[in-house]
């Protein structure tokens, strides 16, 4: 697929969307940092979005990926495999026989770092959109 004038905009928009999804997942992890009950039983498990690169123009009639430019797609949202944190709280309703409560494997500091990364990545994407726009407007000014 030949790259159009506004392909960069489409690519950047897919990145913005993906980062927005990441932000949702982080918010969910932070909100459930102390959730001990879930539908599947056991404590809440930290979620991680998995991003996949999709060649621009895939699914159209032209052969995909020949220009090497890719969109981002959120492939799935996976559960973190780390063990839950065991905290000794005998009075807690969800404590086991030894008095330990299984709290989610969410590390709040880690989530905050991810949150900063996500918002900076979003800013970078928005800046690239702005820059595509200003390039187009500069082109419009040629010969004036």
């Amino acid at each position, binding site marked *: 697929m030949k790259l159009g*004038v*506004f392909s960069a*905009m*489409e690519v*950047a*928009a*897919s990145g*913005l*969307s993906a980062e*927005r999804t990441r932000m949702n997942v982080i918010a969910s992890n932070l909100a459930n940092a102390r959730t001990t009950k879930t539908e599947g039983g056991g404590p809440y498990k930290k979620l991680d979005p998995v991003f996949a690169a999709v060649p621009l123009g895939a699914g159209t009639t032209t052969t995909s990926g020949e220009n090497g430019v890719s969109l981002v*797609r*959120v492939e799935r949202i996976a559960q973190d495999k780390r063990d839950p944190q065991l905290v000794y709280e005998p009075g807690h309703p969800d404590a086991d026989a030894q008095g330990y409560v299984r709290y989610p494997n969410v590390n709040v500091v880690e989530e905050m770092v991810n949150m900063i990364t996500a918002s900076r990545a979003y800013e970078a*994407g928005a800046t690239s*959109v702005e820059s595509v*726009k200003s390039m*187009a*407007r500069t082109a*419009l000014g040629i010969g004036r």
Partner: protein
Amino acid sequence: MVDLFSVIQPLHDALDYHLERHNVLASNVAHVDTPGYVPRDLARVEGPASFEATLSVAMARTHEGHLAGAPTMTATTGRVFDDPSAGAGNDKNFVSLDREAAKLAANQIRYDVASTLATSELAQLAYAAGDARGT
């Protein structure tokens, strides 16, 4: 003989189309939280000939005494289609705000291009009409 405004007409159509598309995209943004909403987009349709084939919205005259119905604006400039390629959220809403914003921005620049070309074309005519004395 070449019509004075023959160059303007395609630009006129382009401006119409991009304005129309802006409205469609703005409506998608307005529905960013509507459950089950699938965003729409406007595809450019070439000329009035293919318009008849794709979408016939013009009123048919069934009696000679009837006034000729004017086709609606949408009919002449584009064809509306659903665009669910962004993927749905939990509420089956397919609108991606970022995608729509990017489309809006690109569409606006295209509108500016057409408008700039039309302006310069008209300025040339005005220059010629003024015996090339300048503005």
